[in-house]
């Protein structure tokens, strides 16, 4: 029975949507950016652990990490990704509760999330430098 059901289910699935043929509305681009920042953050974990391990190993290690030229810029880039993923993630949680899940509401929520992430990234940049 389960075999029949899965065969029937497979036949009804739209498996060949070609994403390159779509015109993406703002909310869709915001959603894809959420995925991209997620992948970036996955890669960033390695850098964060490396810096954190060095900085907590000894005062000399801390000085070496804090004093490196690219450190501030890379941390800021990671924080930009964090703030976007954070706000867009909260938007997704709200969608689960049917908040802003209409076309207009989703568009507005996506713009708010992008706006909040942009402002937060700017403020974090000011704080870092």
């Amino acid at each position, binding site marked *: 029975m*389960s*075999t029949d059901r*899965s065969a029937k289910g497979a036949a009804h699935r739209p*498996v*060949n949507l*070609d*994403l390159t043929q779509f015109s993406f509305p703002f909310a869709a681009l915001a959603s894809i950016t959420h*995925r991209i920042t*997620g*992948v970036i953050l*996955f890669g960033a*974990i*390695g850098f964060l*652990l490396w810096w*954190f*391990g060095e*900085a*907590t190993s*000894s*005062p000399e*290690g*801390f000085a070496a990490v*804090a004093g490196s030229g690219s450190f501030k810029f890379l941390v800021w880039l990671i*924080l930009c990704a*964090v703030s976007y993923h*954070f706000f867009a*993630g*909260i938007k*997704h*949680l709200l969608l*689960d509760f049917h908040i802003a899940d209409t076309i207009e509401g989703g568009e507005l929520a996506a713009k708010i999330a992008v706006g909040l992430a942009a402002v937060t990234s700017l403020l974090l940049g000011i*704080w870092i430098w």
Partner: protein
Amino acid sequence: MVTNVTSFGRSGLSDFVLQRVTAVILALYTLCVVGYFLTAGELSHQALVGFFGGTAMKVFSTMAIFATVAHAWIGLWTIGTDYIRPHYFGGVATTARFIYQAVCIVMLFIYTVWALQIFWSL
């Protein structure tokens, strides 16, 4: 019968819930850590060890590590099955996706052990 080799939990619904619960844990951890950095004043090796070396922060950090593993894996397999498929990759799609997923799992394993070692030796 094999129906699914990608999910983290027992089902799609389980993954859906895990993705959201771990998101909340990671959001709270992020606020806690960023909040600390914003209010700590002059940072030093001593200050970092003092803050992250406390038992409560070690437990919270460990929770964040495991939340990261589940959250990242669910996000990464979703992305893999959405984009690494025959329509874009042709006949090598399944092999490419398998390699992609294997790399993700190995990296998450390395992150986990490495992070636990760093946090629990503070």
